[in-house]
């Protein structure tokens, strides 16, 4: 490598490694949120680059909605084992049993309630920092968020009063009970993530690649048929070739029609797409102009 060949991916990678090392050095008890999705898969490679030949100076934490795709959960366990790092899983079912989460119906989206289980896990382990894979290109409230995003003791984000964040001098100070969410890949786009996956030759869950699946066209999306999603009256199941752009709650994460069967083909498709990742795949973000901002104010990632 030389100055001339330092690419935008190199720059983004170096920034992310620097951020992770700052967290490790300055936070007393951090965790890395690992869901098995592509963004957190990238985080794990960045952590390897940041800390090998040492071990990660933090455990991996997954807030499991129990509404996840089985392929993703299998991948999560496989990857954590392969890395030899500690994985902590906290299940929303436990929060429901304890009465911390009250659902209107068994099949509704569990995304909004992840915050509660996450905040409980943060309290249980006294985590003072959680590294997450959110990106600013995902959503307009995220586009406003700092890399080190301070949350008060209720986990709340105060968008009108964020700490100034200058150069790469991050302020990691918290009082006990408070928490910082850290987003090392804030400046990456969906395309950067896939290009990095290609460059690093990273394994991803199979459902990111095109496959045949039963779906129900509903509103503007294609809902995947599962025990959580069954056709309503007048709805018909179709079997089409799809892939997932995000892998979240099965009840509201929609695949897109695609025949991209390799990372290279996904990159080509991502470069051409005219719909944002969330716009195409998340029904829960379309309810209002500010749904993400509201959720973040309540403690969401």
């Amino acid at each position, binding site marked *: *490598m*030389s*100055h*001339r060949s*330092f*690419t*935008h*991916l*190199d*720059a983004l*990678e*170096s*920034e992310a*490694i*620097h951020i992770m*090392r*700052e967290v*490790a*050095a300055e936070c007393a008890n951090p965790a890395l949120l690992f869901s098995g999705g592509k963004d957190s898969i990238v985080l794990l490679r960045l952590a*390897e*680059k*940041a*800390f*090998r*030949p*040492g071990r990660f100076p933090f455990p991996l934490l997954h807030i499991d909605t129990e509404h996840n795709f089985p392929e993703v959960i299998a991948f999560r366990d496989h990857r954590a084992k392969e890395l030899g790092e500690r994985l902590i899983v906290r299940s929303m079912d436990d929060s429901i049993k304890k009465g911390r989460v009250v659902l209107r119906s068994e099949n509704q989206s569990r995304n909004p309630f992840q915050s509660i289980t996450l905040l409980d896990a943060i309290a249980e382990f006294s985590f003072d920092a959680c590294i997450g894979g959110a990106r*600013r*290109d995902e959503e*307009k*409230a995220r*586009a*406003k968020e700092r890399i080190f995003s301070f949350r008060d003791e209720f986990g709340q984000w105060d*968008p*009108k009063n964020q700490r*100034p964040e*200058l*150069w*790469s*001098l991050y*302020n990691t*100070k*918290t*009082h006990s009970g408070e928490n910082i969410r850290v987003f090392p890949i*804030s*400046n990456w*786009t969906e*395309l950067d993530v896939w*290009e990095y996956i290609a*460059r690093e030759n990273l394994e991803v869950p199979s459902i990111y690649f095109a496959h045949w699946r039963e779906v129900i066209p509903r509103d503007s999306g294609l809902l995947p048929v599962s025990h959580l999603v069954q056709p309503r009256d007048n709805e018909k199941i179709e079997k089409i070739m799809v892939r997932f752009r995000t892998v979240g709650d099965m009840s509201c994460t929609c695949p897109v029609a695609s025949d991209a069967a390799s990372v290279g083909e996904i*990159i*080509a498709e991502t*470069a*051409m797409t005219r*719909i*944002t990742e969330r*716009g*195409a795949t998340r029904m829960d973000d379309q309810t209002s*102009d*500010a749904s993400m*901002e509201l959720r973040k104010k309540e403690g969401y990632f």
Partner: protein
Amino acid sequence: MSVVENVGLDRAELLRFIAAGSVDDGKSTLIGRLLHDSKSIFEDQLSSIAKTSSKRGMQNVDLSLLTDGLQAEREQGITIDVAYRYFATPKRKFIIADTPGHEQYTRNMVTGASTANLAIILIDARKGVLTQSRRHTYLASLVGIPHIVVAVNKMDLVEYSQEVFTRICDDFAVFSQHLNLRNIEYIPMSALNGDMVVERGDQLNWYQGRTLIDLLENVDIEHDVNLDDFRFPVQWVCRPQTEELHDFRGYMGRVESGSIKVGDAVTIQPSGLHSRIKEILLYQSNFDEAFAPQSVTVTIEDHLDISRGDMLIKSDDQPRVDKEFTAMLCWLSEQPLSSGRKYIVKHTTRMVKGLVSQIDYRVDVNTLNQEKTDSLRMNDIARVVMKVQQPLVFDAYSRNRATGSFILIDETTNNTVAAGMIC
């Protein structure tokens, strides 16, 4: 110019820029225009802002809604905090910080400016150089943004007059000659209609210079980082202490400036000890050389006591090591500076306690006059003398952004209260 084709970007460079200027000069519109004309706005984003625009009774789609992402911003129609946006051309990937114009949000502008390679200063052609344009230009020079583009916007409202453009450029040149700005370019444009942003349009044929996108794609940013002085603040020491890596000690950090080769002599500051670079690694790769801004792990030939906050330096170019220094300070907090009070100083990877021992003067950012003062309030900029409890290893900010910058943190509230640039 071809911005549409996005494939094959893995060889592209990264350029960070901000859009600054007075309220309503068209910053958000310009960013919306850049994204739109470079095909970086997605259909669902466009339909969502189209819905909001028509709800408000507007005839055209208001592109500024793209960056004003907070509820409060959309309600008030202003930009409160920095929004980051991304777009790419085959040559470069761009990170845009859309920064607020209002004086009360100066600190958020400084946040966006601190990492930028380039600033676009928008000026409304009808209004000319305003107080806020001056303030933002001064801040851009203070924060050391290497490239400035003066975008004289809303040319459609002055009949695309060359005279108006020339007069504004002259005004700007007069005012900015006292600032330390090496690289100023002027472009007439209409962000609303898209003239001279990505397309040239057919209204500004008297202008022979580059379009904005042409400039953004081609401005030389390689020399924006200091390539001469090797500075490597240690972030984290890796000591696996496993059987096979029993004696391994890796010093992990980012090359903030300059470059280093295996075998080079290094000095460790502030201890002043010497050694040589043994290996440069990252994960499964070994390198002969590392350069800014690479994050790497290095090992050295000798067993020395090195920890976070120490800095590796190439032995023939030494920084200053001192407990007292002069700096320009930008006060960011609603709570004024209490003189004599101790703050936490974060500089590179080092945190020490320190205080402002003297305020030389405050700068009136509108007139650039220097005035006496004994306190600092939010958005004040002043030259001060800092005293710290342990020595810092630093360079002048004008020579090295990374080793010349620091922040002050209030120990009680944990807030970041000031940003400093060492003179």
